[in-house]
């Protein structure tokens, strides 16, 4: 839905900081931490780095994609876990890969409306701890045995309902569209084919993402955004914390040759172009952002980094180009903020797949796309590669679903503040054919 650009004469929300955990490949170093533990690590890190009085916090807007079914409001659990005052209310939003951008814009809307002055927003996801679902058939058949008195006949009856037993094997979670049954990677493969994006282009884009992410880590600039996480062992090791300090997926040493050797992951035969190298991997991680009203930030003497100036969410037919949404959402944000692409200093796009980012860029460049899909006389424009994902993206860092948006907001807010640049445009594609975009403005201007 359309959300107004900044209120004409009202309160404005600013980002004052953000902290995340290291992003780590699923089923690796962070496996023992579930989404609540990851979220707690990020939120704790945020409060350590930005020592505001805890009593100044009004609310928590958290987000998650893989939510524990008994405690889906993980925002509240995380807040209680780290010992925030129980009077600080908390909610959890979910919007697939755009979840934590949604958390940030929801927080900004609360601040603009005057509901809150200080909000912690963010998101966490532990793919390693996705609940393995029991088939509904087993649950339904077993129900008479679990509830009420059971007779031997009930047991036999339940057993007979369960044949054949092969259907009872727990199924691994997959990133599958419910309506189309297609894997996300197959959708990316489709988009590559339909927008005529070659394997080489995708690999070049992935290489650049890794190189820029590696450079950002090497420069030390990411250190203030990433808080180390302690993982406690079990059994004899219990109590011994092992520390995870840095992102583990970024490959400084990858090359086009190495990327070119990877086999297509989603299409059989030589026709496929989407590989593990040019797709974002399953990742564990969490990210938190601290937002305030402009007035509160100056009252507390906190440096405001960036204003959350405008945002937009769109939906497209999942059966068409599943991940093209940002090509519609980003122009809307430009329109609402009265800017052209040329006025934008930084563009940060979630890299679900190289093919998807390149498809969106191609759409933004296309005059016919502009006329047909956006009702614009002229193309949105060419995104200068020098301004796009300047510190790498999800291909290199990985993509904990509900942490990516908050990571992007944090990195861009810092970048605007440090470089003195004016505006950053964010774009995120999401499952279900959703697209998201937001505009951050330098808080000093």
């Amino acid at each position, binding site marked *: 839905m359309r959300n107004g650009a900044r209120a004409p004469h009202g309160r404005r929300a600013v980002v004052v900081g953000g902290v995340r955990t290291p992003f780590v490949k699923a089923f690796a170093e962070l496996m023992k931490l579930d989404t609540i533990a990851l979220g707690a690590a990020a939120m704790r890190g945020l409060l350590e780095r930005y020592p505001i009085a805890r009593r100044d916090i009004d609310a928590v807007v958290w987000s998650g994609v893989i939510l524990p079914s008994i405690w889906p409001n993980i925002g509240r659990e995380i807040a209680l876990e780290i010992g925030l005052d129980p009077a600080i209310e908390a909610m959890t939003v979910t919007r697939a890969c755009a979840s934590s951008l949604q958390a940030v814009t929801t927080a900004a809307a609360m601040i603009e409306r005057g509901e809150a002055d200080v909000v912690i927003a963010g998101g966490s996801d532990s793919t390693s701890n996705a609940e393995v679902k029991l088939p509904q058939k087993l649950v339904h058949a077993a129900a008479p045995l679990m509830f009420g008195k059971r007779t031997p006949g009930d047991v036999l009856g339940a057993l007979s309902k369960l044949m054949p037993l092969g259907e009872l094997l727990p199924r691994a979670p997959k990133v599958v569209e419910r309506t189309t049954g297609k894997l996300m990677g197959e959708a990316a493969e489709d*988009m590559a084919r*339909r*927008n*005529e994006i070659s394997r080489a282009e995708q690999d070049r884009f992935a290489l650049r993402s890794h190189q820029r992410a590696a450079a950002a880590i090497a420069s030390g600039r990411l250190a203030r955004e990433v808080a180390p996480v302690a993982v406690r062992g079990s059994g004899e090791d219990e109590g011994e914390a092992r520390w995870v300090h840095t992102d583990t997926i970024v490959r400084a040493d990858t090359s086009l040759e190495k990327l070119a050797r990877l086999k297509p992951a989603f299409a059989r035969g030589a026709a496929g172009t989407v590989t593990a190298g040019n797709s974002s991997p399953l990742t564990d991680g969490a990210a938190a952002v601290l937002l305030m009203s402009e007035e509160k930030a100056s009252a507390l003497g906190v440096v405001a980094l960036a204003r959350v100036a405008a945002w937009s969410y769109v939906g497209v*037919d999942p*059966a*068409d*180009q599943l991940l*093209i949404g940002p090509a519609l959402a980003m122009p809307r944000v430009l329109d609402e903020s009265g800017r052209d692409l040329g006025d934008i200093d930084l563009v940060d796009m979630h890299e679900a797949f190289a093919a998807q980012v390149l*498809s969106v860029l*191609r*759409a933004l460049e*296309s*005059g*016919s*796309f502009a*006329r*047909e*899909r956006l009702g614009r006389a002229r193309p949105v424009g060419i995104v200068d590669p020098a301004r796009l994902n300047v510190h790498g993206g999800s291909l290199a860092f990985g993509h904990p679903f509900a942490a990516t948006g908050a990571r992007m907001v944090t990195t861009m807010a810092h970048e605007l503040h440090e470089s003195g640049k004016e505006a950053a445009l964010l774009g995120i594609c999401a499952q279900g054919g959703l697209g998201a975009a937001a505009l951050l403005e330098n808080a000093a201007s």
Partner: protein
Amino acid sequence: MRDLLLELGTRPAARRLVARLGLPVPLPVRLNRARGPWEAQPLVDQFIAVGAAGPSRLGAILARTIARAGAAAVISDSASEDAEVFREMGRAYGRPATTVPVAGPSHGFRVDALVFDATELDGPTGLRAAYDFFHPLLSSLRSSGRVVVLGRPPAEATVTEQAAARGALDGFTRSVAKEIGRRGSTANLVQVAAGAEGHLEPVLRFLLSPRSAFVSAQSLMVGVGLPAVSDPPLVRPLGGKVALVTGAARGIGRAIAERLAGEGAHVICLDRPADDTAGGQVARALDGSFLPVDIGGDGAPAAIAAHLRERHGGVDVVVHNAGITRDKTLARMSEEQWDDTLGINLRAPLRIDQALLEGGLLRDGGRVVCLASVAGIAGNHGQTNYAASKAGIAAYVRRRAGELAARGITVNAVAPGLIETRMSAAMPALVREAARRLSALGQGGLPADVAEVVTFLSTPGAAGVSGAVLRVCGGALIGA
């Protein structure tokens, strides 16, 4: 009704055997039909070859229609200026246009449809372009494929040569339909009146989609004089509309009611009070309402009008489906047989429409669809009464269409050929068998095939089609 040949034809072994034995029995193929409601992209992942006689004025519309429907255009590699519009539109929708060598496609090349724009045809010599386009490509057309030829009405021609060439397309298209019918493919001609181009996209979408499975060898006029509906809905086109369907308790009427409801309409299922069990069931299943009225009765129009006024304040779609047959040769026909048939099939629809118009109940932009019959076009032994009523309907819609055009109301007739229903099951077996096989598609249609056409004519997007008698006959020989 079972169709043994059709069932046999679905078995590869049987097809091979028939071919081996050299039997003169062409086995029909099972038609590819759509299921469920309209989709935003009915032609998803299809490849549609496009050609033109001379410069294509409709290029932009064709390119947009194809890409928006989810298909990719296939254009000749002779790289004319026309090609660029297809390339551009393909990029906008992520459906890149591909090319086919002008010398002819390579082995294994397949297309789902062939669209030929002959609107700029100037005379008989120009017809050669049709040969040049179809000759190399026709064997690349998939089964259940589509051929659509776009022409102009001969009556609008500026010179005699042009009128003749335009008329030639009719025979050409009908013949193509016969040649490709055995593979379940259809061919139709669309005559686009000058200035009516804005109405074209929904018509093309429909004719290229599986929803037109049993419409073949037809020519359809897309005319002017009706207000254009800008950006008609692609899905759920009848959302918020009220539709009246007479004879909705069973057969074709029921199929129509189901499809209209499937596209979002509130359907008032009208049938005889004696059929209130069946009619009520249909209405309940569709979340519609049942209106028990005998339309042959003198008070019927007033009763229907009163119901529509009180319950809905008006009506958007009226489908005159109820009909009866009372077959007898004229010499043996009783007065009742004559009167009943003419009364139900012809007099009732006219009176009902009159009552709705006088009562101001048919809303602007409304749709009236009457069920005619191929028998009404061809005449039939023992059906003087029935054929008279149906031919009367055909004339009626042409006349009414003109009267209501200014209000954006369209009035059309749909003429089914052999449709597998209770009525056709009662036909003598040999006659039925002949009727099935003497059509381009070599089989009877289903009630759903008629319902799809009626539904299309009921949508806002069909604003350019009025006064038409559209046959749903699988390219039947009779009356063609």
